[in-house]
C-alpha cells in the first residue's frame, strides 16, 4: 500500500503522458521526409516523433471544439448543464484581478465558467476582495467544467488543491468520493445560520445527499421549452399555454410546420438536439428514477435504471416528430457544437419550438430582437398526459476543500457564504441568466428590474417551484455521470436515426454499458 502511495504524485503526469507517448511510440518514427531512403530507420527510434502526437492531441481535446463554430457556449456546456447561450467568446477581454492587500490570507478558487460568464465571476471576486481585507481570493480559470474536476482529481495526490472549487451538478458524487471535502452544512451549522431555509428548495435538495448539504449552489439553471409566440399566434395556437402534453405538442408541431411551393420545409415545428440532460428531465417529469436505489440519495447508487418506460416514451415522442416531418434532429449534444445549430434554427425562426436551459433565455432574446421575427416564449417541459413529476436543476456549486490552514478554510467559507448573499445572487442572475439560488434575491431591486425586462424568466422558477419533492425530481447522484450521458445520447441517436428500431433495446444497451462503468467505479470506492 505504501509503495503504491509513493507513486501517486507522478500519476497525473505519467498517466497523461503514457497514452500520448504510447501512440507516439506506436509509429512516430518516420517524422523526417526521408523519401529516397525509407528503410534506414530502425523501428525503435521513437524520439523525434514523441512530441508530435502529444502536441496535436492535447490542445485539440479541449480548445478546438470550442473554436469550431458559432457564437454559442454550447460546447463549453457540452456535458454538463448548459451555460448561457450567446457568449461571443473571442471578443471577451478578461477582467484583471485586483492586487492582494498586505496581511490578508490567500484563498485559491478554481472555476470552470468561461467567456462572458467567466468575466462576471472575476468581477464578483474583485468585489469580494475589495469589500474586506482579511482574505484575498485568487480566482483561477479552468478550461471548462470537465477539465476542472479532472484536474482536481489529478491534483489530489500532489496535495496542491484549491480552497474552493466550482464543480458542475453531475460531479457531485465524484467530489464526495475524493474525501477531501468539507461539507458546507458543517459551516452553516457552526455559524447557526438559517441559510438553507432561504435557498431555492429544489436547488438545496439537489446538493443535499444523505441529509447533508455538501456544497453551496452558485449558478443554477433549469430546462424549459422555448417557443415562438408569433408563430403560435399565426397558426392559432394559444401563446400563453404553459404545459403541453406530448400529443398536444405533436399536433402543434404539425400546425407550425410550414412548407414552400416545392414542399421544402421553411419552418419546422420542433428543433432539438439529442441531449441526455433533457432525457433525464423527462424521466423526472414522469416520476421515474434514473438510478437505483433512490437515485443515490440515501445510499450509493449501484444500478442505472434509466432504460425505463418513461425514457421510451420520450424517445418515441421525438421519433414521432421526426417521422411526421415536423421535427428536426440536429444530432448529439454533449461534446459537440450541434447545440449552436439548434439555437441558430430557433432564433432565425426556422423552427418554432426547442428545449434548452433557461440560462439561454437572454441569448435567444438578444439574437431574435434584431430580426424582430421571433417572439421568445417560455413554457414547462412537455410531458405525457397525466405525468405528475417535475424538473431537476442544473448548473454548478462551490465546494470547500480541507486544503490549507484553518484560516484559509474559514476564508473559503467566508467567500462561499458571501456568494450566496441576496445582492450578489441578484447581480449574478441579472448579468448571466441563471436564476438566483436565494429566495431573498427576488426582493433586491436589481432582480426585480431583470424580471420586468425578461418576464419569461419567471416561468422557469415557477416550474421549479411547482415540482413536488421526490427522489426522481431530486436528480440522480453517482460517480460516472459523464460517460452515462454519452451512452444515452448514443442510444438516442441509434433510435432516432432508425438504425435500431426498438427504443427499449437501444436504451438497454446503453444501460448495460453505463452499468459496467458504474460497477467498476463503485468497486474502487470501497
Amino acid at each position, binding site marked *: 500500500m505504501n509503495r503504491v502511495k509513493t507513486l501517486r504524485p507522478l*500519476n497525473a503526469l505519467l498517466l497523461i503522458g503514457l497514452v500520448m507517448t504510447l501512440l507516439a511510440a506506436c*509509429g512516430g518514427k518516420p517524422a523526417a521526409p*526521408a523519401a529516397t531512403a525509407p528503410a534506414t530507420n530502425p523501428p525503435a527510434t521513437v524520439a523525434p516523433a514523441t512530441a508530435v502526437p502529444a502536441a496535436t492531441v492535447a490542445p485539440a481535446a479541449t480548445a478546438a471544439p470550442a473554436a469550431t463554430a458559432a457564437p454559442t457556449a454550447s460546447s463549453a456546456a457540452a456535458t454538463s448543464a448548459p451555460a448561457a447561450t450567446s457568449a461571443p467568446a473571442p471578443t471577451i477581454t478578461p477582467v484583471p484581478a485586483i492586487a492582494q492587500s498586505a496581511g490578508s490570507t490567500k484563498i485559491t478558487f478554481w472555476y470552470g465558467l468561461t467567456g462572458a460568464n467567466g468575466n462576471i465571476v472575476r468581477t464578483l471576486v474583485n468585489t469580494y476582495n475589495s469589500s474586506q481585507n482579511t482574505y484575498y481570493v485568487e480566482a483561477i480559470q479552468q478550461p471548462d467544467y470537465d477539465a476542472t474536476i479532472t484536474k482536481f482529481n489529478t491534483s489530489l495526490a500532489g496535495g496542491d488543491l484549491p480552497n474552493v472549487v466550482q464543480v458542475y451538478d453531475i460531479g457531485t458524487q465524484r467530489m464526495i468520493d475524493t474525501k477531501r471535502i468539507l461539507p458546507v452544512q458543517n459551516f452553516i451549522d457552526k455559524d447557526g445560520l438559517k441559510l438553507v431555509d432561504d435557498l431555492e428548495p429544489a436547488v438545496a435538495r439537489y446538493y443535499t445527499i444523505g441529509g447533508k448539504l455538501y456544497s453551496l449552489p452558485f449558478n443554477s439553471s433549469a430546462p424549459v421549452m422555448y417557443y415562438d409566440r408569433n408563430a403560435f399566434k399565426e397558426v392559432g395556437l394559444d401563446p400563453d399555454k404553459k404545459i403541453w402534453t406530448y400529443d398536444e405538442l405533436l399536433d402543434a408541431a404539425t400546425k407550425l410546420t410550414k412548407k414552400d411551393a416545392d414542399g421544402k420545409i421553411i419552418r419546422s415545428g420542433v428543433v432539438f438536439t439529442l441531449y441526455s440532460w433533457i432525457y433525464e428531465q423527462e424521466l423526472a417529469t414522469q416520476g421515474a428514477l434514473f438510478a437505483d436505489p433512490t437515485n443515490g440519495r440515501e445510499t450509493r447508487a449501484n444500478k442505472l435504471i434509466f432504460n425505463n418506460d418513461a425514457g421510451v416514451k420520450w424517445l418515441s415522442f421525438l421519433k414521432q416528430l421526426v417521422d411526421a416531418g415536423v421535427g428536426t434532429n440536429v444530432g448529439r449534444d454533449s461534446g459537440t457544437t450541434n447545440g449552436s445549430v439548434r439555437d441558430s434554427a430557433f432564433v432565425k425562426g426556422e423552427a418554432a419550438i426547442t428545449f434548452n436551459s433557461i440560462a439561454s433565455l437572454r441569448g435567444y432574446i438578444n439574437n431574435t430582437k434584431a430580426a424582430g421575427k421571433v417572439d421568445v416564449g417560455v413554457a414547462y417541459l412537455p410531458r405525457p398526459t397525466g405525468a405528475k413529476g417535475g424538473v431537476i436543476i442544473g448548473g454548478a456549486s462551490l465546494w470547500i476543500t480541507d486544503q490549507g490552514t484553518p484560516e484559509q478554510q474559514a476564508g473559503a467559507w467566508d467567500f462561499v457564504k458571501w456568494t450566496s448573499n441576496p445582492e450578489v445572487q441578484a447581480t449574478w442572475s441579472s448579468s448571466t441568466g441563471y436564476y438566483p439560488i436565494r429566495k431573498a434575491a427576488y426582493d433586491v431591486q436589481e432582480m426585480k428590474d431583470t424580471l420586468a425586462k425578461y418576464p419569461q424568466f419567471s416561468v422557469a422558477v415557477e416550474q421549479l417551484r411547482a415540482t413536488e419533492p421526490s427522489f426522481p425530481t431530486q436528480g440522480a447522484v453517482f460517480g460516472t455521470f459523464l460517460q452515462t450521458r454519452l451512452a444515452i445520447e448514443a442510444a438516442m441517436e441509434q433510435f432516432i*436515426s432508425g438504425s435500431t428500431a426498438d427504443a427499449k433495446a437501444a436504451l438497454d444497451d446503453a444501460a448495460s454499458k453505463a452499468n459496467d462503468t458504474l460497477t467498476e467505479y463503485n468497486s474502487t470506492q470501497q
Partner: protein
Amino acid sequence: MRKPVLLKDSVLSDKRVGLPIAAKRAVSQHQQRKAFGLALLYLSPALLFLIAFTYIPFLRSIWLSFFITNPQGDTVRFNGINYYTRILNLDGSGRSEYLQSMLTTVYFSLLVVPLGIVFALALALLATLNVKAILFFRTIFTSSIAISVASASVIWALIYSPTTRATQWIIDLLHLNTHSLLQHSSTALFAVAFMTTWTSLGFNFIVTLAGIQAIPKDIYESARIDGASSWQSFRFITLPLLTPTLLFLMLISTIQSFQAFTQFNVLIGNEGPDSATDVFVFAIFTAFWKDNRYGFASAMSVVLFLILLALTSIQYRLLDQRVHYQ
C-alpha cells in the same frame, strides 16, 4: 550488433600487441567499459528524456493495464488480463464494440491511404509539367502541409455544418435523411476520411514529387528515342522507380491514419452516429478522459501498440522486398 564489434576491433588494434593474451583481454575489457561509460555520458541527455517520457510511461502503462484504478489514478485492485479479454471480446460478454472500433480504424485507413497516395501522385505528375508558373502551382499543391490538423478540422467542420449548407447538395443527391454528412452513419467516416486526405495531401505531394524528380532524366530520354508514349514512360519508368517512395508513403500514412484523433474530436466529438467514427484512438481517449478508466485505457494503448508494431514490421519487410533498384 555491429557497433560493439567495431569498438572491440579498435581496442584490439592498439599498440599493446606484446602483452600476454590474458592481460590483453583484461585491458581491453577495462577499456571497453570505459568506452561504454563515455558513450553513456554522451547519450545521457537523449536517454534521460527517452526514459522519462517514453520508456517509463510505456512500462507503466503496461503495468497499469493489469489493474483497476480509481478516478485519482491509483491502482485499486489487480485485474489480471480482464481488460484485454474485454477488448478482444474473449470475455464471453458477446459485446464486440472494441473489435468493431479496430475495424473502423482499418476502414478509415483503407479510405485514407490509397486516396491520399493516388491524389498525391496525380498532383505530382501535374507538377512536373513544363508550363509557366509551375512553381506557383506547386506552392498551392503543397499548401495544406502548413495547416495543422486541428485548424483543418475547424475549416471542414464549417464546410460540413448544416448552417453553411456547403455540402447540402451531396445530402440531396444521396437522398440522406440527415442535416450533415457527419451525422449519418453511412457518410460520417467518408467525410472525415476525405478531410484527412486533403490535410495530408501537401506532405504526400512533396514526397512524391521529390521521388519523381530523383528519377534520372536520361532514362526518359532513351525511352522516348525508343518510341515510348507518355503513358508507357509513366507505366514502365516512373511507377516502378517510384515504388520505394510510394511504399514509404504508404507506411507513414497507415501509421498516421491509425493514430488519427484530432479530426475525429473536432468534427464529431463523440463516437459518431452508430459508432461509425469510433476509431480505436478515440475509444482510448473516451476510456481515459471521459470514463476515467486509466487501467482500461492503458490496456487499449498496449493493444494498439502491438497492432502497429506488427503492421510496421510487415510493411518494412514488404518495403525491403519490393524496392526496385536501378
